[in-house]
């Protein structure tokens, strides 16, 4: 297993299109790193550069101390699971898995042993003689994973491997992928645009936007301490609620004020924001950090627009003049449409962002 290091990697298409901007990233030995971002953010391009399928315009890629920037894909000692699986349709499952091993000039008995082992690990042992067209999407995906494990690479690349599966299978497969990861302990870079997938599977998440990494950290870090409005909005369903507020310091009280709320901050937040007197901020608070409260302690009262029961909880949407605020509330008592609800904020879980840059304060 190995560490991967990207140093100021840039990818330009043509003269004007910059897909990846001077990206630096370190993936530790045995780590499961997820590149997460909306489509077109450069995450797949980054992965393809690591695999060697895309030329690096500037910068260096180092795998296990070896500069692989200009090596052809076959000499990089990486393996990859493609979005469309890319299992070869004219080869049986066995041939698909063993092709790379044959190219490495392994003996037939060794190939046999490895194929059986990885087929067992991925649960396709009984499908070895089938052709891919005779397999379901989920089974093809397993073949792609088995093929990637078989070569025991230094680095495992996965390009949205779950996006072609249906929702239920996707959740089941991501659990299996993580189990396989524990078994192989392979350093893995996983690309996805699905934040819940990233949260559930990653050791660390690197969130990308327009060719740059905007935040990198554990799932908890990026969720609780989102580095910018973009991250806070992108991660989590329903996403973070944002409110434009003005900070007012009066008689030693630090208050957030806007047409709907007038909230006195607790000492910790007050200390954090003491230099922002009379400035505009963006308050971010996650839906589960707003609770339904009595009228007395409420920060905000408004009419419920809709309530979406989810079984274990309900999502209550409250309409302010121009925007919706969503709250994750216990399933009972059920909130009715047009009912007046009173909301209290969990102050320790609030985030503040600068209005101009969108960055966390």
């Amino acid at each position, binding site marked *: 297993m190995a560490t991967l290091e990207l140093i100021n990697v840039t990818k330009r298409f043509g003269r004007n299109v910059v897909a990846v901007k001077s990206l630096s990233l370190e993936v530790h030995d045995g780590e499961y790193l997820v590149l997460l971002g909306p489509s077109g953010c450069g995450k797949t391009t980054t992965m393809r550069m690591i695999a060697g*399928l895309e030329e690096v315009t500037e910068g260096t890629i180092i795998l296990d101390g070896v500069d692989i920037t200009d090596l052809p894909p076959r000499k990089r000692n990486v393996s990859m699971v493609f979005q469309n699986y890319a299992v070869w349709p004219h080869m049986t499952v066995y041939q698909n898995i063993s092709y790379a091993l044959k*190219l490495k000039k392994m003996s037939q008995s060794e190939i046999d042993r490895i194929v059986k082992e990885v087929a067992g690990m991925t649960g396709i042992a009984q499908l070895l003689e089938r052709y891919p067209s005779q397999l379901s999407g989920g089974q093809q995906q397993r073949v792609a994973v088995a093929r990637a494990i078989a070569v025991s690479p230094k680095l495992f690349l996965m390009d949205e491997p779950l996006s072609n599966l249906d929702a239920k299978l996707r959740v089941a497969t991501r659990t299996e992928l993580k189990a396989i990861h524990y078994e192989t302990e392979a350093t893995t870079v996983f690309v996805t645009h699905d934040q819940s997938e990233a949260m559930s599977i990653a050791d660390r998440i690197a969130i990308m936007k327009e060719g740059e990494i905007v935040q990198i950290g554990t799932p908890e870090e990026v969720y609780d301490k989102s580095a910018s409005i973009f991250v806070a909005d992108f991660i989590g369903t329903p996403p973070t609620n944002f409110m434009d507020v003005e900070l007012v310091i009066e008689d030693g009280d630090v208050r957030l004020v806007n047409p709907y709320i007038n909230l006195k901050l607790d000492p910790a937040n007050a200390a954090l924001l003491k230099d922002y007197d009379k400035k505009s901020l963006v308050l971010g608070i996650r839906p589960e950090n707003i609770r339904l409260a009595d009228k007395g302690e409420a920060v905000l009262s408004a009419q419920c627009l809709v309530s979406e029961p989810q079984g274990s909880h309900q999502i209550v949407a409250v309409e302010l003049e121009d925007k919706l605020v969503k709250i994750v509330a216990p399933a009972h008592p059920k909130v009715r449409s047009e009912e007046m609800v009173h909301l209290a904020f969990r102050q320790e879980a609030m985030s503040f962002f600068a209005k101009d840059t969108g960055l966390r304060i």
Partner: protein
Amino acid sequence: MTRKKRVNIYKAAKTTTFYIFVTGVLVAMLLPLYFIVSLSFLSTREAYRYPLPLLPTLTARFELTHGERGYLLSVYDRTTQKYQSVLDTNDLEKMSIYMKYQLATPITIEEIEREIAKLETQDVVYFSHGTNLLYNYETFFKVAGTGQAIPALIRSLEICALTILISLAIGGMAGYAFARYMFRGRDLLKFSVLFVRMFPGVAIAMPMVIILAKMGFYDEPIGLSLVYSVGSIALTVWITASIFMGIPVSLEEAAQVFGATKLQAFLRITLPLALPGLAACAMYAFLGAWNETVSAIILTMFKPTFSVVVYQTVLGAVGQVNLAAAGGMVMALPAVIFTFFLRRYINQMWGGVTV
């Protein structure tokens, strides 16, 4: 009439019409084929009879009597079910030759003498003799193209092989480039490949002759295959480009990641998947080169292709329909064999491999 009955009648009428239509199409397609197959086996006399016999005679039946000039030979005509007098002579060699050439009955003078000997005891002698079904084919190869038929056949096959080779190599590579690489003027170039097919061969015959003569390829198989390749390259480019486009790049990329070079990835992954398309291209190239006559007439002198030889048989001094039919059959056979051989590869394209 109940509604149900009416529906049934409507259905029956629909089915009947459908099968009448299908039968009509089948007859329209198979009748000319039957005509040429049957004609190619008929003896010369049969071939010019009216109405034309439906099938060739396997055993010819003869009647011999004393005639005015010697012996009167009559042959049984299945259409009229009567013996018809064909020859009155006492020259047995002439009779033998007549029977061989006109009636496709290879009979020796001795055999005729033996039958004639019987005339001493009886007035009429009936006898029969097997015909040579392949007489037309044998004659065709002996006579057509002044004995050039077999060399011409080999030359034609050579031209076809060269055409397939050139058009698959160049057209296939171009098709791959059109499918996989984005470059300036790609679409324009792709369309311009088709422009060469706009001109009828005859219209550009003169320049072709001059250019090929300057290259030293006039009257050479390679010259003709170059001319044929121009047309089939265009077709190959379009077919292979769409085939290669249908094969995801990621299949090749996966091979590269798993240890193959670019060339290995192409040869081991993309090429086998493109095989049906390439087979179809090979078939088009073959049929185009095999059937082409106009350019071949213009661009050859002493080394005609087989299609030219058959063409000459129809028009030239040999001029017998049954010989021309035999030539046509010989012409059709390799194309049919080749098509059947490639069929299983082409079938893959429509059913077998799903990418």
